[in-house]
């Protein structure tokens, strides 16, 4: 496979629809060819609520990406999110037949089926089943048991599932463009691929993607995903809070949030105000900055608390060296890391700078972590595929979603 591949990552977010076109070189380096972005409409809390509008926006973003990258986009990797997406860990056990000396690929597949044989709501569909570890005869974790000898094979799987209808809706939206959906990836999983280096995954890392509609998170422990999920609160809620509490139109609230919102302690003097210019639809007013920051901070804290609660319910036990990595538009809030560290009691780290070239400003912006992560994900999947499953540290595919063509 010593050939260059072009992948396209698509994220239909609540605030923006983003398409990243990148070239993946044989050596694993990635070069971003173009980024297309359009403000997103008809998407609420990470889910498409207005099909046609969302499709129009998506079309805009795609056209822009095609123009900039000079690539005709035929298929995309798509990120999905939404509070309906849940995860669980399950262990599949199989006994290896007496006459069989060593564990084969078929055994692994069987173990995986066992692991996936888990009760999920009937409306739900698997998005990912990611292998975490194998155990042979209850011993230590084994990365690749193929060829090992043993009587009992256990496989720990992390299963991410979500509402079938909502995921299919998102896919339909893309397919009607028409565009092939190569794969569907849970957004934070994609983001983690670009943010986390191998050591981070080993040490343990919590990736929090503070999007506009949802806050998604994924925990890596001992090199593999252990917990993932999504909370249906995001930056839009902050805007909404500001709008509701301060009685502002949402447009003004959004501007105010971006321009003056901060949660850095001591960033504003008591009584400091900020003036909002009036315009044709809105009477200007003075806003107390302390109050503004309080509104933002309270919402952020609550969001993080919700994440923390979800983690706690999954027996989240961070070990030493554990770090938190932030991405998404919400992570641009001034002073956010203080709050994150305060809530989780863990250190916030800077994301990994993967070997990426191209539009520098793009991959350094945490807002693009997901679409770029999608390309990284595609790259990894592709690397795995020809070998048909040595199952490094990531990925198994849900067969139905695999795109048949790789013409990009």
């Amino acid at each position, binding site marked *: 496979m010593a050939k260059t591949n072009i992948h396209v990552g698509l994220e239909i977010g609540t605030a923006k629809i983003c398409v990243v076109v990148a070239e993946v070189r044989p050596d694993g380096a990635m070069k971003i060819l173009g980024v297309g972005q359009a403000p997103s409409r008809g998407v609420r809390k990470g889910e498409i609520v207005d099909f046609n509008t969302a499709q129009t926006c998506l079309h805009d973003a795609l056209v822009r990406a095609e123009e900039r990258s000079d690539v005709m986009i035929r298929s995309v990797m798509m990120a999905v999110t939404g509070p309906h997406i849940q995860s669980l860990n399950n262990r599949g056990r199989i006994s290896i037949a007496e006459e069989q000396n060593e564990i084969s690929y078929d055994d692994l597949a069987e173990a995986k089926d066992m692991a996936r044989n888990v009760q999920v709501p009937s409306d739900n569909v698997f998005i990912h089943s990611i292998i975490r570890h194998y155990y042979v005869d209850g011993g230590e974790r084994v990365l690749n048991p193929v060829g090992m000898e043993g009587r009992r094979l256990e496989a720990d799987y992390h299963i991410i599932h979500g509402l079938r209808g909502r995921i299919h809706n998102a896919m339909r939206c893309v397919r009607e463009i028409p565009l092939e959906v190569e794969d569907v990836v849970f957004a934070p999983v994609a983001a983690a691929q670009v943010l986390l280096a191998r050591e981070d995954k080993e040490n343990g890392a919590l990736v929090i993607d503070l999007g506009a509609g949802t806050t998604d998170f994924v925990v890596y422990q001992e090199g593999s995903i252990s917990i993932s999920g999504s909370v249906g609160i995001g930056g839009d*809620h902050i805007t*909404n809070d500001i709008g509701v509490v301060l009685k502002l139109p*949402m447009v003004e609230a959004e501007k105010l949030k971006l321009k003056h919102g901060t949660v850095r302690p001591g960033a504003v003097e008591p009584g400091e105000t900020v003036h909002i210019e009036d315009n*044709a639809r809105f009477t*200007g007013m003075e806003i107390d900055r302390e*109050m503004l920051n309080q509104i933002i901070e*309270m919402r952020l*804290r609550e969001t993080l608390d919700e994440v923390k*609660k979800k983690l706690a319910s999954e027996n989240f036990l961070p070990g030493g060296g554990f770090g938190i990595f932030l991405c998404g538009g919400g992570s641009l809030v001034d002073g956010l890391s203080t709050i994150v560290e305060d809530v989780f009691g863990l250190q916030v780290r800077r994301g990994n700078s993967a070997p990426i070239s191209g539009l520098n400003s793009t991959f350094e912006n945490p807002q693009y972590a997901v679409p770029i992560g999608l390309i990284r994900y595609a790259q990894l999947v592709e690397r795995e595929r020809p070998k048909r499953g040595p199952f490094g540290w990531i990925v198994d595919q849900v067969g139905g979603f695999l795109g048949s063509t790789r013409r990009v």
Partner: protein
Amino acid sequence: MIHFDPKPSQPGSESTPSVCAIGIGGAGCNVLDRLALGRLPEAELVSMSADVRVLNNSMAQRKVQLGAEITRGLGAGGDPELGRQLAKATAKEIGSAVEERSIVLVCAGLGGGTGSGVTPFVVEQARAAGAFVVVFAVLPFPFEGRRRTEQAEATLAELETAADVLVTFENARMGELALPKEGIQGAFAAADETLGQSIRAVAGIVLRPGIIRVGLDDLTSALRNEGSRCLFGYGEGQGDARATNALQKALKSPLLDNGTDLKSASTVLAHVAGGNSMSLYEVELVMTELAKHVSSEANLLFGTGTDKALGEKMVVTLVSSIGIAAKVEPPVELLDIESKATPQPKALKPEEEAPAKEETPVEHGESVAKALAAITAAVAAAPTADDQFALDFGFEPEEEQSEQPEEAPSAQDLLEEDENSAKAELPELEQKEPVVIESLVIEDAAPSIATASIPTKDVSETPAASEIEAIIEDEPEEIEAPAPEIEAIVEEEPVAEIEAIIEDEDEIEAIEEPAAIEDFLTEPEPEVEPITAEAPEEPIAVEEIFSEETPEPIEEPEPFIEVAAPVVKKLSLVDRLLQNREAFFAEETEEEENNAGFGEALLQEPENEFVPNEPNTEEPVTAEDPIEPQQEQAQEPAPFIEEPEEVEEAIAAFEEATAPATLEESEPSYYEEPKPEPQVAATGAGQSMLEFGHAPSSGRFQNADPTISEEGDDLDIPTFLRKRMAKG
């Protein structure tokens, strides 16, 4: 007042008033040049100067050289007497420049020969030609010497009587307009520009087709004070915040002193113009913002119009004046009132009647008798003007009933007295009020109905606070309450009053003109009655509106807000928040009526969220005890707000409602299928929901699936509000 003329109007009359702007002397021509540079709709510019150099440089369409034979192309040399001669020598040309004009704007620098000498003559000519004359006079710098200042003041006194509106600018003040570093060129340019703007604005607001038109009468009342300083502000705004920008610029106009001067103005004329894109909201924005700079008692005259030529721009023009008269309010005496009121009628003089010189400076106070006398006389003299008379007479009853009882018997005497006293006081008043006698005499000589009735109308229309106060001080027993004029009319039965008055008049006038009085008696009554018949309806109507509205807040339970109010009051931030919220709810009550209560919103299926009084059969809490909520509801009105225990109860109840046990069973945080629920029954349960008030709005998520936390909180509601609530 320009009354409606059923006959086709002659050219240059009301419908499209023809305007000409005249610059007199060097200063006047400079300003005129500024006008020529800018946009002055439909106005002919005429420059008049004795100095050929000035005329050569002038950009005016029409140039009049004054007294070419006398000065041979040189200036008047600072001698007003010479200026007068020049004017007389050029009377013909001046006359042709102003003839058939309905509005003449005269701009001159006073104190010099041409400015001081020619201006009064031009104004006189224009008046004689039937034009409404607005004079913009620039007073010389103090350093120009006392003589010059005196000349300027003498001319000013002349102009005050001659012009319809006199706007004065002080050069000394105009010097402040320019930044010190800009140099003298800049200073004069700025001064000229300001003057030019004000002329343009006056022309513009009068000429511009308006949605709410500003007329000459508004302009007159805005600029009424004698010896006054003109407050003038002009601002243009563009872009997003154009409304405020325009207003801010207008207020920052140097003649306004950042709007602080407006506080002391009794009448402010505001004109808001814009392109077709100007929205009502923007106009409202300007006016509400302006109201902050104007005293609440001030008479705010408002006009608005659109002008395609303005494009995306918005223009705010403020015109007002403060004068000695306005500042020395408290010790106003009768004569002061008189002096104040005198110039009004001139301004209101209908153009058609101008040649007849029907200036009747009748002030509202003691002048009613005079007015009536004039009316009766005029009825005899000009009975054809009945319609007009009736129109104007409609405004009179209030005056009559308040003034007449004492004065009517001695009306004739009083009239004489007034004249005498005015004459006696003349030396003191000279600067302010030299016209009185002259015009009074004129009135006696040829009084007309229209002019006689004008003052009363004027007073009722523009009751400048100061004047009313003055009246109250002076004649407290006559006017009981200045505001409820209508009621007074209703109560005291003005028809009868008028009859009484007329009887009184009879005694006086019968000797002179018995026939005229009969006319008078028959004519006014039917006109007065409709007004009295209308008048009682008005207060009642208002009451009705109130009585319709008031029940609403009572019936409508808003315990959520009310409960929260006393509890959180300790925290200043939350105070503000609450104010916001209350205001918010006040706005949204209608919407929220349809909304389920907060607690219920959490429990209900999202699809049913908006069904009011949604019965929730699955929820035992509400279904079982419908009595308790009803009790609480009964306590709701006003006292409920102040009771702290009940507040606590309510909060406890609120918390109960917000933490429903059912939520733990439904593990997914989204709701898909609406459970079929009977929409009809169980209003009691719905009421209990209303008990907990309306949800603190979740804004844009209000119509979305709620994001429910494990505790049962609706996470779409601002954390800020929820946390404060919990703390409270």
